[in-house]
């Protein structure tokens, strides 16, 4: 005989889960009791939102499904932001929530909330398990749905009596999932791929536009090989950074609102946009009808609903990026170099390099550059949201997929720190940094308790400008410098870290940045760095909202 709780833990282990992030409460007591003697590692966070983000960070860093656990009502509701964050960026997590006993469902019982209803729009799928007998298979199905096709969060709601009930249950040897309503397409249509290749051969100014889908399907190697074989330049979205090494000669860096000028100019002049694992998000395209308006468009994505959603596509290919890229590699015979196109791009690169003033002031970009030099492409870099995120995207040199973790679609402040905790459990061999803003860090600052408790060696580098910097930047540029509620009073973050038993350094001079970063890297446990950066530094270049992406303001020009 097994309780539902026991079936749950066994089920998780059968899915290969080793670590889960959670927070206990009344209706999950039976599950926690089962965890007490289990080999499954449970990390007690300090807020359920952090459990969801940690599961998400784990998933992004490892490519495996991350798991979080919370009690009913307030616990479950606290997960929602984290689930929505994972949903927007297609991250495979399974969220487990306790629920009031089935007999009380719908009665406004103590700590009841309709979490399957609440998370309907932000999960790939969700379950309210009403019978212990169903639990084993639901777990299998949930993991299957989460990690296949376009990945995403799945929630399982577990009423208390389902966890406590004892049944005789053996997991079936071969518990295959077969859902007639869910059959993702992995292999791209062969004739469509031929058509795409034909177009590539005809093109004069082709460009790869690469997104998170390439990271998710572990297709970076194939992408780089194909780009090199054809000599086609590559630009990536925020989510696609790391798909091609930053210092690769074909790499143009990020496109879009805070992309490089050369990437945005290349998109604008390109005659063929080879779009893979992207969704033509408004932060990328700017004004839609001018985006890549001279280009024919090939769009490869595993989610058919993304194809043609925002932009008309000439060659749609539904399929997994890796599989489609492999097919392309196998089919392409001719090698081509687009000499003229490359030299045009080269001249933009020379004319509009990513630079900022080198005047001895402590500028946030400098901190990122120093860290980038020190880590030399290694490590996992997680960010918060705002200017800190954009500067990291612009100035850190990512060389590997899954080395860059950020909340792109939802833009969740407070994501970075807990996600960094999760990333550590995925990649314990790597140094993990959370590049934070002072505002964002304070949204989940309580997790200092968790990293201290378990000595999770996450390094937090706060680009402390005492502003909600990104919002302030918009107020400066578009609201006549009326800084309405964006200034933050000074906080002594080192003292706060110390209170949790964590070491930290405050850095006020440019000259101290490198040694402080080194100290953090060399310290075994967690570490907090409080960089008092230039307060009103802006992220440039920038495409104002609604403008065409080649109408950029700011940034360095020769």
């Amino acid at each position, binding site marked *: 005989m097994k309780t539902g709780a026991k079936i749950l833990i066994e089920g998780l282990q059968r899915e290969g889960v080793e670590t889960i992030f959670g927070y206990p409460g009344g209706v999950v007591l039976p599950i926690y009791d089962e965890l007490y003697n289990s080999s499954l590692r449970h990390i007690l966070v300090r807020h359920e939102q952090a459990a969801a983000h940690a599961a998400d960070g784990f998933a992004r860093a490892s490519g495996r499904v991350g798991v979080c656990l919370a009690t009913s009502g307030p616990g479950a509701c606290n997960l929602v932001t984290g689930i929505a964050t994972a949903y927007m960026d297609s991250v495979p997590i399974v969220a487990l929530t306790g629920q009031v006993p089935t007999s009380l469902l719908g009665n406004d019982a103590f700590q009841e909330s309709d979490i*399957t*209803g609440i998370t*309907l*729009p932000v999960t*790939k*799928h969700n379950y*309210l398990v009403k019978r212990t007998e169903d639990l084993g298979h639901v777990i299998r199905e949930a993991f299957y*749905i989460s990690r296949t096709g376009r990945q995403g969060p799945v929630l399982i709601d577990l009423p208390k009596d389902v966890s406590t009930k004892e049944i005789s249950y053996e997991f079936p040897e071969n518990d295959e999932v077969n*859902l*007639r*309503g*869910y*059959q993702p397409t992995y292999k791209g249509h062969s004739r469509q791929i031929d058509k795409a290749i034909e177009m590539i051969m005809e093109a004069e100014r082709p460009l790869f536009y690469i997104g998170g889908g390439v990271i998710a399907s572990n297709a970076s190697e194939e992408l780089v090989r194909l780009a090199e074989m054809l000599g086609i330049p590559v630009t990536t979205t925020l989510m696609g950074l790391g798909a091609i090494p930053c210092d690769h000669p074909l790499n143009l860096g990020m496109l879009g609102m805070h992309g490089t000028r050369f990437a945005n100019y290349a998109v604008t002049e390109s005659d063929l946009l080879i779009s893979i694992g992207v969704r033509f998000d408004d932060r990328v395209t700017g004004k839609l009808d001018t985006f890549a308006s001279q280009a024919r468009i090939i769009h490869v994505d595993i*989610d*058919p*609903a993304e194809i*043609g*959603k925002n932009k008309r596509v000439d060659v749609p290919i539904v399929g997994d990026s890796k599989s489609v890229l492999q097919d392309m590699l196998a089919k392409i015979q001719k090698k081509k170099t687009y000499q003229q196109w490359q030299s045009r791009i080269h001249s933009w690169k020379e004319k509009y390099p990513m630079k900022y003033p080198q005047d001895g002031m402590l500028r946030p970009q400098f901190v990122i550059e120093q860290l980038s030099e020190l880590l030399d492409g290694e490590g996992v870099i997680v960010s918060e949201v705002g200017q800190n995120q954009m500067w990291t995207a612009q100035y850190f040199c990512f060389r590997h997929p899954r080395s860059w973790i950020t909340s792109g679609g939802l833009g969740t402040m407070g994501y970075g720190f807990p996600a960094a905790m999760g990333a550590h459990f995925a990649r314990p061999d790597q140094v993990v940094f959370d590049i934070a803003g002072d505002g964002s860090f304070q949204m989940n600052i309580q997790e200092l308790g968790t990293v201290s408790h378990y000595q999770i060696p996450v390094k937090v580098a706060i680009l402390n400008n005492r502003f909600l910097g990104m919002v302030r930047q918009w107020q400066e540029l578009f609201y006549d410098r009326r800084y309405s509620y964006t200034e933050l009073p000074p906080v002594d973050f080192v003292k706060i870290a110390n209170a949790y038993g964590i070491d930290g350094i405050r850095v006020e001079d440019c000259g101290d940045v490198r040694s402080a970063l080194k100290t953090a890297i060399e310290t075994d446990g967690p570490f907090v760095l409080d960089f008092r950066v230039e307060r009103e530094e802006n992220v440039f270049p920038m495409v104002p909202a609604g403008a065409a992406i080649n109408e950029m303001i700011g940034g360095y020009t020769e």
Partner: protein
Amino acid sequence: MKPHTLSVLVENKPGVLSRVTGLFSRRGFNIESLAVGTCEESGTSRITIVCIGDDAQIEQVIKQLNKLIDVIKVSDITENDRVERELALIKVNADPGSSRAEIMQIASIFRAHIIDVGTKTVVLSVAGDTEKIDALEKLLRQYGVKELVRTGRIAILRGAKTVKSSK
């Protein structure tokens, strides 16, 4: 922008209707009519949705519906040869003296049935396409329609063709 009739085959699972309708409201698609019921395959239900949008919007609706795990198949049967029906129950003021006879006459022209007779009202049942029901309602309005209940449209293909799960 024109009405599209979608026939959606779904797993008969709790919450499936709210998954489907939630998707419409969330993504700003308008539902003009919706009818749901079990169908020939056990464990499945068929939802007939009439919605209005341009081609791109309807394509998105269909793709998004297809992404729902419990949705087995979505067919846009707007361009197909099909029959569509809707059932309406209409309660009308009908004083025995004056209007009752007229109402009965109108009912028979529309092949509506009088299925309940009260002292001051009658209830008509009518089946047909939307236009027919609209027309009948309009005619009855002069007598005072006290209550109107419509099922929403259902549709089926003509001939041997079916809308079945093959997804």
